[in-house]
């Protein structure tokens, strides 16, 4: 019996999704990518989507492709790139988890026959990227009602990075104190770490080289 999803299964499942996603036209660009580290280099699906189409794509993934799990929502701030200053990356998984079957009034736990998985039942990783041009109030559509797991991920992304999610109910600070100043989102790149000179810090992360001239500076 197979002990894990094989590279072949993952590749054919990924190709199938990329083929079907082309129905969306120009708003969605999908490709099969491969992990580059480790021993297996399994395939996953990488999708670039126009932010306004994201909800439609999400619903399609959930309803037609069985994507049932939102792993993580990440915001990235690229201040030097005015066309795409805000990026939101969503990682989804297709787990195929179902409630256990009930046969003759008895519950039977599910033990997946891994070798027999094919098509929509193969576990699959999705990386979905969307960008927003430079603006003071970046926002992409929320998917917290599609995958409830995205709810707190989106709260965290707004809290730390400042990307808002249109349609998200109950947005609030989750990791920073509730009374943090409005508009303060520490993972934006204008907030430097510890010292004012960004490059200097990157060249010498431990700070050994700059201790003498730093002594008079305010942290």
């Amino acid at each position: 019996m197979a002990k894990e999803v094989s590279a072949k299964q993952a590749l054919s499942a990924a190709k199938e999704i990329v083929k079907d996603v082309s129905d969306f036209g120009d708003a969605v660009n999908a490709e099969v990518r491969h992990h580059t580290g480790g021993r297996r280099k399994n395939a996953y699906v990488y999708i670039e989507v126009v932010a306004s189409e994201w909800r439609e794509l999400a619903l399609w993934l959930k309803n037609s492709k069985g994507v049932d799990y939102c792993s993580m929502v990440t915001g990235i701030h690229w201040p030097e790139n005015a066309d795409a200053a805000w990026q939101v990356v969503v990682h989804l998984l297709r787990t195929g988890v179902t409630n256990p079957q009930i046969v003759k009034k008895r519950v039977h736990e599910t033990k997946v026959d891994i070798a027999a998985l094919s098509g929509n039942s193969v576990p699959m990783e999705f990386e979905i990227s969307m960008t927003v041009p430079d603006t003071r109030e970046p926002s992409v559509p929320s998917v917290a009602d599609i995958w409830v797991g995205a709810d707190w991920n989106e709260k965290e992304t707004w809290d730390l990075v400042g990307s808002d999610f249109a349609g998200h109910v109950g947005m609030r600070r989750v990791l920073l104190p509730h009374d943090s100043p409005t508009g303060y989102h520490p993972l934006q790149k204008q907030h430097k770490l510890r010292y004012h000179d960004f490059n200097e810090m990157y060249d010498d992360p431990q700070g050994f080289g700059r201790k003498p001239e730093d002594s008079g500076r305010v942290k």
Partner: protein
Amino acid sequence: MAEMWISMGPQHPMTHGLWTLKVKVDGETVVDTEPDLGYIHRGVEKICEARDFTQITTYCDRLCYASANTWSHAYIYAAEDLLEVEVPERAEYIRMVAIELQRIASHLMWLGAYCPDVGNLTGMVWCLREREMMMDLLQELGGSRMHYNFPRVGGVKRDLPIGFALRCRAKLKLFLDRIQEYEAILDESTIFLVRTQGVGYAKAEEMINHGVSGPNVRAAGHNYDVRWAHPYSVYDELDWEPSVERPSIKGSDCYDRYRVRVEEMRQSALMILDGLDKMPGGADTYHEPGDPAILAKAPARAAEGQTGYHHFEDSRGESMFYLAGGGEGRGKHPYRVSIRSPMFITIPYAAKCMIGYKIADIPAIMGSFDPCIGETDR
């Protein structure tokens, strides 16, 4: 009866760390909850942006003090994905041993904390006693007691010490016997059964939609495990299968979640015993921190905008690191490090899970999901 909000925390015996649970009660029944996190937010993601790829491991250890090794390995696999690094097979075996030992230690810490939650102090003492054996073994590998800093990009810190396999086998065999002692004091204790059975029902599909994974889902009757779904390391060569519980029609209760973790400890111990037998001979397993062979290539391999990520089966569910490379401008440093903490997503779900039960059930339900605040707040 009038409803009112009660604030539990940030400090009380159940919380397993600092966080507040606001509970709305009607008499003794919980009608609404609202978790409030962030008391120990350290800004690890921001700190990592100023460290090179080999230095970040140290911070990942400190994400969760009960499960340090699984977190640093979760990072290492993501970094290897970004930097396109291959790992010798022996190093993969050593990593597997380290990860599974840590999983046992983490589950023991959980059981040790859960027993007093539901009124059994003996269980705590016994679990911490066995945890010491795992800590000793991990200390042999990493050199320190809690934060091992063991994996390296491209390998591990050092090869197995002489005689490690011998000591590891002896301790695990003793441990496998001791698991039966836990089962004897817990499964046959009426108090434990009454506190855990029939409370905190959770269904598998609902949990997956809420982003809950790992042992909590396996307790609800589906054997989904990242180790076979998105494989890494050498789990395909070992003789194992994910532990899974048979829940009731209403879903898994706290007792199922306890059972699945006990089974998982047994499974991990057998996995290590099997891995020690199958471990191949010595390829190069060692990499210095700041190894020039790795770091010199980092700017070219981790070009700006290039990304690496890895889904990892942590002791508490699916954890993940997502790294965006910094390219030439930033040299050896990542541009953005994003951490997926399973407990950050699970705690809000566990809080919903309590609605409809009594105040006295809150510790039993909350504890059964294995909360860890270090990784939650990052």
